[in-house]
């Protein structure tokens, strides 16, 4: 078998058995040295100590049936060992919608369904005019969502219809829960990226006024904590505005969050721009592209691809920072959970509330992270041969 025709070349042999397969993998990765073996044993022990009790509390001992706090308690009033998930079930509406009127919550749901329906076509790979459709949806959807959330039948004391109408207005102070968190985060994310790109380009501009303005803007917003920004927007800004001029608190918070993260985004994008070799600019100029096209078609697609991990990092940070709007009296998701924790009917179940909140935040952030990996792989061209 081994003596093939002599071609003058040495034959390709299979690798030694100990370096391939499950055994090979274990040897190589888990037990390659005494230190590695020690780490493996320590890690397994840590998992053994932490995971089973957690599972016991969250799943096996958990209370899933019942409707009231007493279903989670022993006859003597002490609470049972497992997690009391019926509290979360009872409060789920509050967590999702905050103080939004109970009979109008379907409008928020409708906005949620619409976002899926409107953005779903973008998943089709070869949709004609896909880019235009994407831009149209991103510009149009916020308007649609705004009217869904707010409604359009204004409240007037002498019109009885405006108290009960399914499209009566709900003022922004009543918006809340996970819906509010998603709203602030998505507005912040969608608006801060283009703004950040403009600021990054501005900072690298050869025009001194543009670049000075960009640097000042970026450094100012980056140099101030978000809490300060939110405080300023809700407490101090009205003092500076002329009497009678007042605009919505949520809008002010949205602008604050957006500008704040745009400053961070600008620096992330600038990092990407610096990674683009001068030759790319020269080649683009040599084929006659003007500044805008050179940036839009050659430089930015590459620069943004380089910094996808950092962009998503900023987005995840922004998503979690939205909890700070609690400071200015808005009940976002975390605020709504705290509201539930303070409910006299359900005292003593704060851990369940926070664990639920953590799980939802983790789910959102982890999805963003996975999506970024997917995007990186999809946009990867030719550095590695596939």
């Amino acid at each position, binding site marked *: 078998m081994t003596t093939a025709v002599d071609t003058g070349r040495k034959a390709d042999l299979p690798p030694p058995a100990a370096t391939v397969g499950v055994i090979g993998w274990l040897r190589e990765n888990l037990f390659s040295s005494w230190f590695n073996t020690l780490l493996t044993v320590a890690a397994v022990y840590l998992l053994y100590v932490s995971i089973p009790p957690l599972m016991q509390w969250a799943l096996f001992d958990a209370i899933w049936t019942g409707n009231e706090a007493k279903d989670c308690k022993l006859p003597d009033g002490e609470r049972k060992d497992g997690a009391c998930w019926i509290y979360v079930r009872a409060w789920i509406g509050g967590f999702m919608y905050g103080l939004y009127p109970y009979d109008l919550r379907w409008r928020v749901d409708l906005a949620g369904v619409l976002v899926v329906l409107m953005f779903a076509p973008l998943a089709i790979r070869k949709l004609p005019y896909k880019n235009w459709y994407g831009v149209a949806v991103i510009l149009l959807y916020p308007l649609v969502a705004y009217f869904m959330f707010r409604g359009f039948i204004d409240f007037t004391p002498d019109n009885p219809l405006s108290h009960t109408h399914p499209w009566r207005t709900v003022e922004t102070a009543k918006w809340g829960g996970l819906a509010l968190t998603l709203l602030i985060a998505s507005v912040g994310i969608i608006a801060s990226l283009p703004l950040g790109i403009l600021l990054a380009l501005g900072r690298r501009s050869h025009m001194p006024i543009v670049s000075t303005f960009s640097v000042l803007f970026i450094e100012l917003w980056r140099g101030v904590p978000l809490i300060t920004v939110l405080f300023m927007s809700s407490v101090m800004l009205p003092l500076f505005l002329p009497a009678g001029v007042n605009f919505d608190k949520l809008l002010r918070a949205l602008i604050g969050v957006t500008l704040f993260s745009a400053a961070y985004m600008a620096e992330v994008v600038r990092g990407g721009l610096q990674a683009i*070799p001068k*030759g*790319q600019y*020269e*080649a*683009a*100029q*040599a*084929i*006659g*592209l*003007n500044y805008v*096209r050179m940036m839009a*078609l*050659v430089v930015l*697609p*590459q620069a943004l*691809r380089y910094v996808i991990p950092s962009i998503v990092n900023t987005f995840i940070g922004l998503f979690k920072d939205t909890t700070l709007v609690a400071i200015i009296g808005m009940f976002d998701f975390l605020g709504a959970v705290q509201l539930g924790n303070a409910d006299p009917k359900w005292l003593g179940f704060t851990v369940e509330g926070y664990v639920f909140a953590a799980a939802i935040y983790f789910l959102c952030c982890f999805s963003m992270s996975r999506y970024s990996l997917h995007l990186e792989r999809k*946009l990867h*061209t*030719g*550095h590695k*041969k596939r």
Partner: protein
Amino acid sequence: MTASAKPLKSAKSDEVAIQIAGMHKWYGEFHVLKDINLTVYKGERIVVCGPSGSGKSTMIRCINRLEEHQKGSIVVDGVELTNNVKNIDAIRREVGMVFQHFNLFPHLTVLENCTLGPIWVKKMPKKEAEEAAMKYLTRVRIPEQALKYPGQLSGGQQQRVAIARSLCMNPKIMLFDEPTSALDPEMIKEVLDVMVNLAEEGMTMLVVTHEMGFARTVANRIIFMDMGEIVEQNEPKEFFANPKSERTKLFLSQILHH
């Protein structure tokens, strides 16, 4: 290095393609280009050589305004290079450029690299641009790579794509800035062959290169630069046989007898 040993037939005409007169350039205090005077006729093939740092790349980069000159004038195809953006755009549409490091756009396929200019600058319909691009890719002998990304090609293939990308803009003049200097030896020939073909078709070419075989067979005129000035220019035969200045003699002895 090149295929044929006997010089190509000249397509040179009396019409002026590029006129550089009294051109100077400084990098800060450093005087890189000193009183450059050069007339290039349509269909003429010029090789620019000289030691590194002699300003030869800078000179040809001034012709499509990748570098700005500070004194004197450059007229390309009847249009003077000034700060007027319209003039710069007009000249860049007429002048193609090939770089030492190819500078292909790595996020676009070979075909997209070639159609980017025609679609966005010349406003050509996509289908038409793609057909033209395939024609030029066939001419540089890599039509089968059209849907690959530059990162998947060899250096020689990338440089040929870069030439095709320039040709897609249908330029009247082609500038080559050391097109083979970054290539492995076995890939130099495939790029030079494409350039010889281009020369045979009558393209006006300005080539900065150290490939003296190419200069000998393809060039109508060789320009020798040193310390930012044009020291000597002559037909290839005379240039190699009877260099006039000492600097040229020194340079030739260094590159021909290593």
